[in-house]
C-alpha cells in the first residue's frame, strides 16, 4: 500500500519539487493519486488522448514507439524522479509514446483535471507546481538548443543522440536516429 507519507517523500525527492516548503508539497500531494503498476502493464498508449501526467517514484518504465518497420520498439527507459505525460497535457496533443512498466512501478499521478486546476491555482501551491513544470520544460529547451547549436557548428560528437536526448525529443514527436 502506498501511503500519503510515501507520496510526500516521492514528491520531495523529485528534483523539480526539491527544496519546497513541506506544506506546499503536501498541498500539491492532495491533488495527486498513488498508483502501483505491475511489470508489463500498460500505463498509457500512443495516440490516445492525454488524461494524466505522472512522477515516476520507483521502478523503470519503457518508452515505446514504432520503429522503421512500424512495429513498436523500446526507445528509452524512464527512471525514478522523472516526470512524464505532462508535455501532451500542456501542448494539447495526443500521446506521442506508449509507456509500459518494465519493473514493479510506483507512480504519483495527476489527472488532467487536477493538473489544470494546479496550473490555474493563484496560490503559492499553484505557483510551486507551475515552477516545477517550467523547470522541467526549460531544461528540455536548453538541451535541444545546445544540441542544435553543436550540430550547426558541425560538432557531431556533442550533438550525438544519447538515449536521454532521444527520449526528450520523443516527448515532442521527434524520432532522432
Amino acid at each position: 500500500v502506498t501511503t500519503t507519507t510515501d507520496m510526500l517523500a516521492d514528491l520531495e525527492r523529485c528534483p523539480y519539487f526539491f527544496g519546497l516548503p513541506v506544506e506546499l508539497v503536501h498541498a500539491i500531494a492532495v491533488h495527486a493519486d498513488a498508483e502501483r503498476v505491475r511489470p508489463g502493464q500498460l500505463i498509457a498508449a500512443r495516440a490516445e488522448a492525454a488524461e494524466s501526467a505522472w512522477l515516476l517514484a520507483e521502478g523503470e518504465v519503457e518508452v515505446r514507439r514504432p520503429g522503421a518497420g512500424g512495429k513498436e520498439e523500446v526507445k528509452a527507459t524512464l527512471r525514478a524522479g522523472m516526470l512524464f505525460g505532462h508535455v501532451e497535457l500542456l501542448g494539447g496533443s495526443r500521446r506521442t509514446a506508449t509507456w509500459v512498466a518494465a519493473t514493479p512501478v510506483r507512480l504519483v499521478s495527476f489527472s488532467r483535471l487536477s493538473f489544470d486546476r494546479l496550473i490555474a491555482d493563484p496560490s503559492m501551491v499553484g505557483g510551486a507546481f507551475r515552477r516545477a513544470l517550467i523547470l522541467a520544460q526549460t531544461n528540455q529547451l536548453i538541451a535541444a538548443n545546445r544540441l542544435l547549436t553543436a550540430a550547426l557548428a558541425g560538432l557531431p560528437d556533442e550533438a550525438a543522440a544519447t538515449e536521454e536526448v532521444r527520449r526528450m525529443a520523443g516527448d515532442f514527436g521527434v524520432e532522432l536516429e
Partner: protein
Amino acid sequence: MQPDFAERLDRVQALPLFTGLRREDLATAMGMMSWHAVAVGDTILRSGDESGDIFLIVAGQFDIVVGEGGRRLVVGKARPGDLVGETAIYHQRVHRTATVVAKSPGALVSFDTTVLDALAGQRNPVPQRIEERILRDLPARIQTSFLLLDQVRREQESEAAPNEGSLTSSVVGRVRELFRK
C-alpha cells in the same frame, strides 16, 4: 521620446496576456520591471551569455536564432505578448541558448526571477499570467528545436546543401500539426 509610466502601462495593459487584470496590479509589476526601447538590429540577448532577465515583448517583431559563429537558424519569431529568454526563469545559473534580434523598432520590459517571486509574495496575479504563458509556449518551442536538430543531422549525414527556408517552413508545419499552434 520615451513614453512616460502611464503610457507604458497603457501599452502593457493592452496585451491580451494581461486581459482582465487590475491596473494597480500591473502598475505594481511594471514599477519593478525595466522598460527598453529597441531599434532594428538590436540584440536583446545573445547565445552563450550568462542569463539573467526574461523579456516580455510589448511592441515589435523579433527573430529567435540558434547557432553561434558559423551557421545559424531562425527557430522562431516573437511578437507582442511573447516572452523570450524564458530559460532564465527559476534557474540559478544557465547560459543563453539562443540569440534574439529586433527585426523592427520595438519595446520590451525585462525582469528576473526575484521580481516574480516578490510579486507572487504579494499575491499579485502578474507572475501567474507569465508562467501560464511560458508553459503554453514551451512545448512548440522545444519541438521546433528538436525537429531542426533532426533535419540538420540528416542533412549532414547526406551531405546535402542546406536550404534554410524549406527547413524552417517544414518544421513550422509539423509543430502546428502536433500542438495546434
